[in-house]
């Protein structure tokens, strides 16, 4: 039972988080920031493009550095 639960958890971790947790964490933080800025009445559309411009090179750098 325990191993099945672990396998189930590992499947979802691999499915959602994937090879680099930084991407998922960055997306969550940027969406939270977008929500908070929007609630405060500040234009926040630029935050996710900024996330893409920062997280993608960072993740690639992490991948090539570890090889």
């Amino acid at each position: 039972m325990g191993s099945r639960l672990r396998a189930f958890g590992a499947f979802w971790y691999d499915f959602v988080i994937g090879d680099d947790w930084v991407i998922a964490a960055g997306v969550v933080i940027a969406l939270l920031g977008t929500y908070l800025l929007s609630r405060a009445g500040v234009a926040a559309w630029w935050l996710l493009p900024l996330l893409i411009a920062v997280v993608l090179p960072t993740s690639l750098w992490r991948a090539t550095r570890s090889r």
Partner: protein
Amino acid sequence: MTAGAWALFLAVFLACAVEAVEATTIVLAAGTARDWRSAMTGTGVALAALAVIVAVLGPAVSAIPLHDLRLLVGALLLVFGLQWLRKAILRASGHKALHDENRIYSEQLALAQSQAREAGESQARRRTPLVPDWYGFTLSFKGVLLEGLEVVFIVLTFGGNQHNVGLATIAAACAVLLIAGLGVAVRAPLARVPENTLKFVVGIMLTSFGALWGAEGAGARWPGSDAALLVLIPAVGLLALGLTAVLRRTGRPAARPAGNPAMTGQGAA
């Protein structure tokens, strides 16, 4: 059709084509190594199971408030898109081995053949008219169901968000029929389909759509509304191409294909 409808069609078509390539490769391996009737029965049963899942999931998805759906789907698409793009860039720049459908086909073939030897006569005793070989059936069923679920997810999320599930379904059907037709025609690994190029493009589309919907779901308003995609998609594409070019010039490439830009994915994907 409007520009938005074309963008939806293209995104769904490309994303579903990638999934179809993977499913078709598995079915071809199962059919070649084991038994075509079992492989095709497995495929048919998996498609029937998918139809039931769509019938159950469809209304459930449409009942979710659009705002919340956009936030959830946008977040998932953004994560998936960035992951796809990351892998495609690493492969295109030679820092990661290309996704070789030939190798996958050979591995599936060898596995299926070794299972056939081990099963021996006990396998023959369990034969049924529709499924002479249960291993071939299971292999096909599993491959088609898993990849098919991803196709369903793509259709429901993309189509649901754009209020055009019908168009998304047509795009998915076109992609699946095209790839399946190619598979039937060649009955060989789909290595000639440039999967990495496809993944590169799909990664750009998923990332762009994810950013658009995610931000809207979180309460932001894009300048130009959906037309912002016309800037987002080329911008993400340029960023990805730029990063690929930089990575090609730097670092220690581990699997760069000789004399062949990996972006073409020729011979492997």
